């Protein structure tokens, strides 16, 4: 039997059903791997061994009874922004130290119901604000391919855990690229669903008009399985849509009848590395030889996307983060004698530099006198960006590009330059502004580090994004290798 920490959900499901391995053995193998590798990778903030063994035991019973779900016995990791009852959940922030949610969020609960086994909580940038996981208040995570490189972010711990073979799949959240970019930088598959596809009940909010929960996995099919298990209407999230759960529809149908849009703007962005461009162009050729037709499309407002995003996301976060006041949960400056000082001192010592920066920026953009020039203008530009995509999708079924203009960079390379860090998301944040589903699949190595291919599809067409990604996976014989740290 191959090393189970390198297999996909589909492969492991078969081994589990045929009783060649038990869920308990599988959980222990992963817990052992975390113990031996995580001192180097630092993907996990907390390991939930007790829960893992309990859920694995339940999974083995379901398997013995011949009644397994689609994810029964599959070990997963959960980003530190998703509430799990009784498990410390901190959004990578000191301000939530010690917080144990009294309930489990819908997306995680649905995975539990499907039989998944939770190994632990993964590291991320504080409140998911960042592109390298260096903004975590606890410690940075390292890229399993080269430990002196970042894993990307903000869901860097989740991406690194899957890449290092510490978890078979994991959950992340994507507000401007926080699933797709780390998936690209770590060499795994990562998907952001359509806004409204997955309930956010139990997600610690960053920017509510942009946030979505999605999976990291080792294959496109795995990604589809996880998404299918999480998707669907939830009365507890008023933005979750009541639509058919058709994300896996015709996933193996291939791209022969498809037109794939190539936006030149996305190939000529500032900082695009030649190695990345070359691998993505090769991937496009491969899709072409698999039968797809490539068409040129244009997204003329691409250059303005970053600016609009860095108004809208901070504005929403400044409002969402107002709830962290030292009264209801988490850190609290209890020595203060009046309520304002309690707020000030708590937030002073609880929030890190990037969070403070964004709260300031957002508060400024929303303040009277600047509202029209910044926030309203950004919302109008958001309309223009949405229209760019609408027009492009009249000419093509999906849009293909690089996920990130660069491969994984060195730790510390961008921490002193917020603008340089923001530019990491230049190819992904358009998908958030327009609410589109997007997936990143590995498409080769440049200088020993993974490159990601991004596929964006129209709203509610996860099936199209997954079908294109699956076709690429087949045509290229791509297999997510587990980096041997």
């Amino acid at each position, binding site marked *: 039997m191959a090393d189970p920490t390198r297999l996909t959900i589909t492969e492991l499901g078969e081994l589990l059903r045929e009783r060649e391995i038990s869920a308990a053995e599988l959980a222990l193998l992963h817990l052992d791997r975390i113990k031996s590798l995580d001192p180097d990778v630092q993907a996990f903030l907390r390991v939930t061994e007790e829960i893992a063994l309990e859920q694995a035991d339940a999974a083995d019973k379901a398997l013995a009874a011949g009644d397994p779900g689609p994810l029964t016995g599959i070990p997963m990791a959960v980003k530190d922004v998703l509430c799990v009852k009784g498990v410390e959940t901190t959004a990578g922030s000191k301000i939530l130290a010690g917080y144990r949610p*009294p309930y489990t969020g819908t997306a995680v609960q649905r995975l539990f119901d499907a039989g998944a086994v939770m190994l632990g909580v993964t590291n991320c940038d504080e409140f998911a604000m960042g592109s390298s996981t260096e903004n975590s208040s606890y410690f940075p995570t390292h890229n399993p391919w080269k430990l002196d490189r970042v894993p990307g972010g903000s869901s860097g711990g989740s991406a690194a855990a899957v890449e290092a073979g510490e978890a078979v799949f994991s959950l992340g959240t994507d507000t401007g690229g926080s699933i797709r970019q780390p998936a690209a930088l770590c060499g795994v598959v990562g998907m952001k669903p359509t806004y409204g596809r997955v309930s956010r009940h139990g997600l610690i909010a960053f920017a509510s008009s942009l946030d979505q929960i999605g999976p990291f996995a080792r294959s496109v099919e795995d990604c589809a399985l996880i998404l299918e298990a999480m998707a669907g209407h939830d009365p507890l999230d*008023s933005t979750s849509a009541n639509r058919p759960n058709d994300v896996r529809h015709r996933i193996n149908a291939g791209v022969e009848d498809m037109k794939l849009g190539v936006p030149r703007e996305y190939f000529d962005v500032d900082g695009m590395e030649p190695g990345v461009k070359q691998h993505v162009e090769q991937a496009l050729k491969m899709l072409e030889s698999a039968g797809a037709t490539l068409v040129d499309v244009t997204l003329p407002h691409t250059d303005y996307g970053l600016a609009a995003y860095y108004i809208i996301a901070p504005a929403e976060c400044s409002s969402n983060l107002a709830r962290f006041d030292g009264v209801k949960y988490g850190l609290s400056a209890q020595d203060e004698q*009046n*309520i304002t000082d309690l707020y000030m001192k708590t937030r002073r010592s609880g*929030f890190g530099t990037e969070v403070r920066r964004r709260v*300031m920026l957002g508060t400024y953009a929303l303040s009277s006198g600047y509202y029209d020039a910044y926030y309203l203008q950004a919302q109008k*530009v958001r309309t*223009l960006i949405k229209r760019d995509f609408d027009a492009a999708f009249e000419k093509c079924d999906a849009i293909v590009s690089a996920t990130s203009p660069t491969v994984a960079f060195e730790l510390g390379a961008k921490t002193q330059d917020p603008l340089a860090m923001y530019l990491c998301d230049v190819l992904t944040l358009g998908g958030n502004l327009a609410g589109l589903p997007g997936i990143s699949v590995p498409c080769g190595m440049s200088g020993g580090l993974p490159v990601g291919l991004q596929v964006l599809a129209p709203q509610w067409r996860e099936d199209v994004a997954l079908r294109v990604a699956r076709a690429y996976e087949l045509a290229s014989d791509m297999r997510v290798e587990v980096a041997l740290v």
Partner: protein
Amino acid sequence: MLARLGLEPGDEEFYAEQLSGILGAIDRLQELETKHIPPTAQVVEVEATLREDVPRPSLSQDEVLANAPARVDGFFRVPSIQEEA
């Protein structure tokens, strides 16, 4: 002040420099003519959905207060909000 961030001496200069760089990059939004463009606040059309107005299980008072830094008699405890008269 509005954001209650509790800035300390030295912070202002640090953030002012970085924020002016970021605002400089953001200012290019002003290049676009948007007089007739409607703003987008919600990018996906979701009908305003209200739940059925029926009672459902909720958290107990104890569960809600379990994470409170300070509690007293079933309430969150906070420092004084008003000066004594």
